[in-house]
Structures are given as structure tokens and as C-alpha cells.
């Protein structure tokens, strides 16, 4: 009911409140910076005085693999952080300000209210990630060699899935919480839990973080997949959104 109308409003809000621009700018910056850092880190090291002799000689010449791993490292840190920061206030702030109460007496179902927000954030992150990917692809082309489009698209698609997992969890935290502080706390608890459990060997193969290494391996011509992690990630998204809808339906705003 009214999904398109609310979604349009959400997109307009992201634009007018500069949320879209911030996400796009941060992603673009890290996308562009990744191959640059990979290329010029050894050069920068050379100008540091007092380095032990022979250290610079032991650093291998940077390759396209360094550019990719730098890109994945940046995205896995700042992309996830951005996903949490941008999402965790979206529902709780409306509850605190009173706009949620004002709009939920209109023909807007609570599910629409949540799903439109998630959809708009997804579009924003797709755009941001597209900019990052373009930047990374272009500078890698200039500084190293052209990247294979197919695997690079797969890598970015898998990264998007990871971001969507954290966005869904942050949205759930924002829905459960009564105050912004609680939402922040819950979102970071989710981050620590997923990150912590995901770093345990074997168990980690089933967690979203594994998608980064799958994408990287695939990009660099390696073999192996992480379909269980992919399935678990989609499961977390669906479960988090479903829980958020149920919680919100029962909540008095």
C-alpha cells in the first residue's frame, strides 16, 4: 500500500538531507583511493627517513592484486561502518521526533514504512558502490591493467550483499530501540557479534564476511565458492526485516 509514494519520499529525503551525497562521496573516495594507495605505498615508504637498509628492496612491486585487496579492505571496513551509521537512526529518529506517529495515522502500513526506507537505502548504497567500483576500475586501468568486468561485478555484488546484511540489522536495531543511543548500541553489538563469530575458523565460512574473500579469490582467478555464506547472508536480511516488521507492528509509537 503506497509503497512507491513512500519510497519516492524516502529518496527525496536522502537527497535533500545530503545522505545520498555523503554515501556517494565516501564510497567514491575509497574506490579511487584504493588503487592509488596500492601503487604509491612503496613510493611513500621510500621518502620515510631511517628505514632499515634492504627493507624497500624486500617489498615486491605492486600489482593489480594489491589494488583489489586494498579495495576490498577499505570497503569491508568503511563500507560496513557507513552502512551502520546511515541506517541506525532512520526509524528511531522518526519515533523520537514524532513523524512516525504523524504518518502512521495515514494510509501507510508499518511494513511499507520500514520496507520503503530499506529500499531507498539500498538504492543509495548501490549508487555509492557503483561510483566506488568505477573509480577503482578506472585508476586500476591507469596505474596497473584493466580489470576483468565480470569478476569485478561479482565482487561488488557480493560486497553489496554484506552491506545489506548490516543495513538490515541496523534497521532492526533502529526499530526495536526507543532512543537513538540504544539503536547505536544495538547496531554495534550486531557488528561485533557477526564480525566476532565470523572470524572463528570453519564457523566463519557461513558468515557474511566470507563473501569478501570469495569475491577477491574469484577476482584474482582462484577457485572456490562461499554459497553457504551467501545463503546465510540472505537469510539474515530476510529474518532481520521480518522481525523488524513484526516488532514495529506491535509497537506503540
Amino acid at each position: 500500500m503506497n509503497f512507491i509514494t513512500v519510497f519516492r519520499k524516502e529518496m527525496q529525503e536522502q537527497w535533500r538531507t545530503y545522505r545520498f551525497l555523503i554515501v556517494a562521496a565516501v564510497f567514491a573516495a575509497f574506490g579511487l583511493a584504493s588503487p592509488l594507495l596500492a601503487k604509491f605505498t612503496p613510493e611513500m615508504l621510500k621518502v620515510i627517513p631511517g628505514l632499515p637498509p634492504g627493507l624497500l628492496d624486500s617489498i615486491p612491486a605492486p600489482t593489480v592484486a594489491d589494488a583489489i585487496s586494498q579495495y576490498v579492505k577499505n570497503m569491508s571496513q568503511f563500507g560496513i561502518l557507513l552502512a551502520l551509521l546511515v541506517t541506525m537512526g532512520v526509524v528511531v529518529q522518526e519515533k523520537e521526533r514524532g513523524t512516525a506517529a504523524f504518518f502512521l495515522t495515514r494510509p501507510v502500513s508499518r511494513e511499507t514504512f520500514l520496507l520503503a526506507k530499506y529500499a531507498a537505502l539500498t538504492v543509495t548504497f548501490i549508487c555509492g558502490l557503483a561510483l566506488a567500483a568505477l573509480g577503482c576500475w578506472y585508476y586500476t586501468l591507469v596505474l596497473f591493467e584493466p580489470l576483468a568486468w565480470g569478476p569485478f561485478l561479482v565482487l561488488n555484488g557480493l560486497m553489496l550483499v554484506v552491506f545489506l546484511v548490516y543495513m538490515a540489522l541496523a534497521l532492526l536495531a533502529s526499530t526495536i530501540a526507543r532512543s537513538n543511543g540504544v539503536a547505536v548500541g544495538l547496531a554495534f553489538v550486531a557488528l561485533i557479534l557477526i564480525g566476532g563469530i565470523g572470524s572463528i575458523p570453519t564457523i566463519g565460512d557461513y558468515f557474511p564476511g566470507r563473501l569478501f574473500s570469495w569475491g577477491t579469490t574469484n577476482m584474482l582467478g582462484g577457485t572456490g565458492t562461499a554459497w553457504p555464506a551467501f545463503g546465510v547472508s540472505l537469510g539474515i536480511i530476510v529474518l532481520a526485516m521480518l522481525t523488524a516488521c513484526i516488532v514495529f507492528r506491535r509497537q506503540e509509537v
Partner: protein
Amino acid sequence: MSSVHVDALKKYYGAVHALDGLQLEVAPGTIFGFLGPNGAGKTTTLRILTGLARPTSGTAQVAGVDVLMEGSRLSRHIGHLPEEPAFYTWMTPREFLDYLGRLYGLSSKARLSRTRELLALVHLEEVSKRRIAGFSRGMRQRLGVAAALIHHPEVLFLDEPASALDPAGRKEVLDLIENLRGQCTVVMSTHILADVERVCDVVGIIAKGRMLVQSRREQLLEKYAIPAFEVEGDDQAALLLWAQELRRLPWVISVVPRNGPFRITVRDVQSAKRTLLAMAVNSGLTLNRYEEVRPSLEDVFLQLVGAEDVS
């Protein structure tokens, strides 16, 4: 059929009984004043009737729609103005009303004309392209009224619509409400008696989550108001002496100085009319004013709510 029908409504927050078996009936086309002290349960009632909160028990229908069972249908029949209406402040009033119009499924032509009409009604045409972020409280309240009216609701719920406004803002909002007479049923909660006296046809007085009385305003005044007279003079000392003399009379209930004038409440109006003025003259008082005062809603309210507090 009633516009609002509430039966045995209860809402408990742990040990706190916000509503304790509330009964309420509002006839179509009425401007209903929902009156009560702070914490009486007015906002809780409105939140339940607009689908924002669920009762612990009881039933409620608005415009024939069961609030508890048919919540999704409810929004098309009601308009709601919360005590502090909140907006997307990055929008302009025009964009905001247009967005609401879309939510109610109005065509683009209908949205355009309704937006113009409402902005004119609430005197916000000149600022229709300014962001809401810069609006005063009064402007926001008026925009809230416009927002509540966008879809021609059958029942309009207003929670303390003028309580936080300055006198000019209050007058504007009350004028707006008065202009809605005959267009829809209005249920207005407030703790300001003067607002109710000014615009409401029917008054319900609530305290501690229960409806103490519900009646047409005039009937309420007739039934509960105690006849009173006001006397004002220059010599306060002489008036005080006279007051002591009056208090001994069997038909006098009380004599209370009220910011200058003395208010004399009586059991027997005829005796008072016959005797009061003559007594004042015999006591050598110089009176500036002698008046049989019209009983006010404040008297009724204090009488009812005071009795409830004692019980």
C-alpha cells in the same frame, strides 16, 4: 450512528491505569471538547482512537470502523493532529500537503486544488515555498490542521491544538476549528476551559481515566453550575467586613475574593436578588459593580474534578 463510540475502554501501563473503563459517545457533526486535567487520559484515548496505541480491554469505533479490528481502514476516515505535530522539515508546506494527498490517492489535479485551498484556509499561502524547518509553532500547528484535513475526514481528532500557542496563534487555530462546524465531527482534547467554552457544542469531562460527565455545554452549565454574584468596590476593608456578615446568612454558600471582585455563591437566587444589593447599601458600601454572573465551565470543571480528587 455515532461518529465515535467507546465502551469500557481500559489502558493499563503496569500499575498505572491511564484509562479505567472510559465511556464516550460523539454524535456526527459535533465539536466535542474532551476536557480534563493533565494526566487524565485524554491523549491516551486519542492515541487509541487513531490506532497508535492498543487498549488493554474495551471496544472503540470511529466512523463505524472498529479501531482494534479494522485499523487499516481507519486512516481513511480520520484526521489527526497530535499535540506537537511533527513534519519532514526539509519539505515545503506545498510539498508536504501534496505528499499526503498522494498517500490518500488523490489525483494530481485534486492534490493541486486541495493544497491551494488548505494553504489559504490556514493562511500559509505566502510561505508555501519556504521550508517547514523555519516555521514558528503556530505556523506548524496550522499546517498540522491543514494536513489533518487533506482528505476530508469524517472525524477529526485534535490533541491540545492550541495549548502551547500565544494568544494570536490560539485565536487563529480556534477560528479554524470553529469554521469546521458542519463539515466534520471534531474531537478536541484540551485542559484549557476557555477554548472549550468558545468552540465546543458538547463537553466530556474526564479524570483519572474515567468520564465524569458528558453533555451539551448549556445543559452542563445548567445542571452543575452554582448561581453566583460578583461585587466590586473601592474599599476592600469594608468589603471584607461585609463578606463576614454575608457568610452568616443561610442562603450564602461562600464569599471569595477573586482578583479584585468578590464572588458570592448562593443556594437561593431569589433571596440573593432581593437582599444582596439592599444589604450593601445599608452597609454604606460604594460599589463599582454588582452583577449576577453567568456560571462558567470552570466552575463545573472544578466542582466535578475536585469531587473526583476528594473521592
